[in-house]
């Protein structure tokens, strides 16, 4: 089994240790604002455990995915809305 996975974050390739969460991959690319709040504030992960919903991004065309609870997989296409 591979020890790393490679995925795309906003079209940019990122390699992470196997088992990493998408949220860590996004932060690693230097993106801190994952999405915009309802009044347009930049927001990033808060609780790290899938409860706050601030870390939501679009993964493989599915909107509102909690990136802190989604394990990185090879070829995943992650889009933030910062």
């Amino acid at each position, binding site marked *: 089994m591979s020890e790393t996975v490679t995925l795309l974050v906003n079209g940019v390739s990122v390699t992470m240790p196997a088992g990493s969460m998408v949220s860590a991959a996004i932060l690693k690319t230097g993106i801190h604002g994952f999405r915009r709040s309802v009044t347009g504030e930049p927001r990033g992960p808060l609780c790290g455990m899938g409860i706050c919903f601030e870390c939501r991004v679009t993964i493989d065309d*599915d*909107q*509102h995915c909690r990136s802190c609870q989604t394990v990185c997989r090879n070829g995943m296409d992650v889009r933030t809305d910062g």
Partner: protein
Amino acid sequence: MAKTYDVIVIGAGIVGSACAAECAREGLSVAIIEAGIIGGGATAAGMGHLVVMDDSEAQFALTRYSQKLWDAVSDELPREVEHDACGTIWIAADDEEMAEAKRKAAFYSERGVPVEMLDAQSLAEAEPNLRPGLVGGLRVSGDSVIYPPCAAQFFVDQATARGADLFLGASVETITADGIRLRNGSSISAGVIVNSAGSWSPALTPGLPVKKRKGHLVITDRYPQFLRHQLVELGYLKSAHSLTAESVAFNIQPRKTGQLLIGSSRQFDVDDARIDTSILTRMLDRAMEFLPDLRKLSSLRAWTGFRAATPDKLPLIGPHIEHKRLYLATGHEGLGITTSVGTAKLLAAQIMNRETEIPVAPYLPARVTQETVHV
């Protein structure tokens, strides 16, 4: 309490609040009595659809009258009311429903309501997420949507700004000859008492032909591009018509937030406010028959509410047949949000002994005689 009011309004749902605001505008002294919170009943639960309906001339007259009143006030409504002139599309799934759409279009056109027939292609262009194979629809561009609890608050604020007193958390034990007595023992007297307590109104006025009609709703997360208009299936009318059956009908509303509010269901003789999973499933399955991609959307909450329904589907607006001081403003079923403002005008005019702006006879409580029973 020593003060005698001109009017006591029982219930600060959207109907009661609108009535209170109108009475206060007429210069009457008003007491608003609310046992819970402002807009906490059906007002909180239902869809805020401002719609013209044509089940009957009387229903059309009241909804049309009300819609014009909403249009006149729309600029004043606070941001939180989220007024959005998105329009309605009535959807025809087959030729029979398309014929109904045409009949509706003619009815509205004749009465000056702007309408537009949509064939299959223009329907698909108007709402790309609808499944293929629908025959067409009717767009009513003058319809809009609001967030009702904030509208009720707006009306209450209008009333209190004109001197009305708000009694929150005050539960009415009984309507007396000259006012009300609260559960805490105190009494308030008034020249006129208005029972606008929605599905609680029969508890205060025994014998009122108002029954609870339960509905379910679901709200999704934000999907701003998913839907542009309020969509209602023409089969909705079959559901709203039935007095006995439990039924579901496709009805979906885009909120300004991008959230989708999905309904609708109707059940009589159910007092239980808990979610009925079987009805909820039927309702959502029905919605997915029109919008298949709903299946993947995230739903945040599901809840129920009780509409106040009368036997002839028209509200009760006017004096009680026996009690000299009592007026009724209740029984609005699924049209309470729309017709709240029309109801307020009709009620205030009657209290002031003035001619109403539209004929009021169809809504008078006196029309519902002792012989009228719920089927």
